[in-house]
C-alpha cells in the first residue's frame, strides 16, 4: 500500500515503479454509513464511490507485485481494511512541509499491525528535517524505518519498496 495525505505523491510513486501506467479502480459503497459526508442518493439507496490508483510490477514469471495508492480521503477506512488484507506493508509518504497530514495513515497502520516505512518526500528539492527529527516529531516507534525519497524517481521508489519488504521480513522473523 502507498499511503499519505492528499497531494503527497502517492500516484507519482506508484507510476514511478509500475510497469503500466497507474490504473484506477472504484469501489461503490451502498447504504448510509457514519463518517461519510459526501453522499449521493440513488433510488432510495445511499451510495458513495471511492477511487484507488494502482500499479503492477512483474517480479518473476509467476510473481506479480501490486501497488495500491490508498484512497485520497482518509475517511474511507472500509477500503483500507480491504487493502490491508494480504498486503506486505505500506509506504507512508510524508510531505515534510505538512507533517501532520500523515497522522491518520500512521495511526491506521500502527493499529492494524501492518509493517510500514515512512518516506519523506522532499518537495522543495531538499529535506528540511533529519529522519530522527521526524521520528521524534511524529512519535514514530523505533522499529519503523524512516527514509528520504523523491517519488518521481524510479530508483528512489524502488529502494523504498526494498526497505519496506526487508522491514516486513524482519518483523515476521523477529
Amino acid at each position, binding site marked *: 500500500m502507498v499511503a499519505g495525505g492528499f497531494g503527497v505523491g502517492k500516484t507519482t510513486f506508484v507510476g514511478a515503479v509500475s510497469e503500466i501506467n497507474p490504473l484506477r479502480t*472504484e469501489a461503490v459503497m451502498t447504504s448510509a454509513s457514519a463518517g461519510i459526508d459526501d453522499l449521493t442518493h440513488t433510488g432510495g439507496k445511499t451510495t458513495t464511490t471511492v477511487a*484507488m*490508483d494502482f500499479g503492477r510490477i512483474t517480479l518473476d514469471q*509467476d*510473481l*506479480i507485485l501490486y501497488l495500491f495508492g490508498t484512497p485520497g480521503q482518509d475517511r474511507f477506512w472500509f477500503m483500507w481494511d480491504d487493502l490491508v488484507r494480504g498486503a506486505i506493508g505500506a509506504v507512508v509518504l510524508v510531505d515534510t512541509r505538512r507533517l501532520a497530514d500523515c497522522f491518520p495513515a500512521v495511526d491506521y497502520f500502527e493499529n492494524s499491525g501492518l509493517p510500514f516505512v515512512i518516506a519523506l518526500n522532499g518537495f522543495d528539492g531538499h529535506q528540511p528535517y533529519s529522519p530522527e527529527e521526524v521520528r521524534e516529531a511524529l512519535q514514530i516507534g523505533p522499529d519503523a524505518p524512516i527514509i528520504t525519497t523523491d517519488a518521481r524517481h524510479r530508483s528512489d521508489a524502488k529502494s523504498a519498496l526494498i526497505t519496506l519488504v526487508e522491514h516486513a*521480513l524482519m518483523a515476521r522473523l523477529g
Partner: protein
Amino acid sequence: MTTPPASQGSYGTHHGPYDDDGDQPLVRPYAMTGGRTRPRYQLAIEALVSTSVEPVQLQGLLPEHQRICQLCMAEVKSVAEVSALLAMPLGVARILVADLAEAGLVAIHQPGHEGEPGGQPDVTLLERVLSGLRKL
C-alpha cells in the same frame, strides 16, 4: 500460478476508465449481477485470474463474463485490473469473477496466504518479492 506470455495490449489508456466525478451508471452492473452485492466468497483485490477457455466456450455467457475471460486469456490479471480495464466497480468485478470461478471457467490464484484471505504473506513469498525487487 502460471503466467501466459506478456501482452501490453490491454493497457492502452493513460488513466483508468473512470472520470473523477464518478458519473458512471450504477444501476446496470448491479442489475447484471442479479441483485447480488456480495460474492459468495470474498476475492482479494490482488487475487489473480487466469483462463484457458476456448472462445467457443464463451458462447451463451453474459457479455461481461465473456469480456473478463477475453481479458484474462492474453495475460493473468488481478481482480483490480479486471475492474479498472473493464470499467466496472470493484464489487461487481468480484462477483462476476467469482461466478466464472464457480463455473470452472477461470482459475483464481491468491498466493502466499493459501486460500485464506486475510492471511499475511508468508516468509517465502516475502523473500521472493525482496529478491525480485533487488533484480529490477
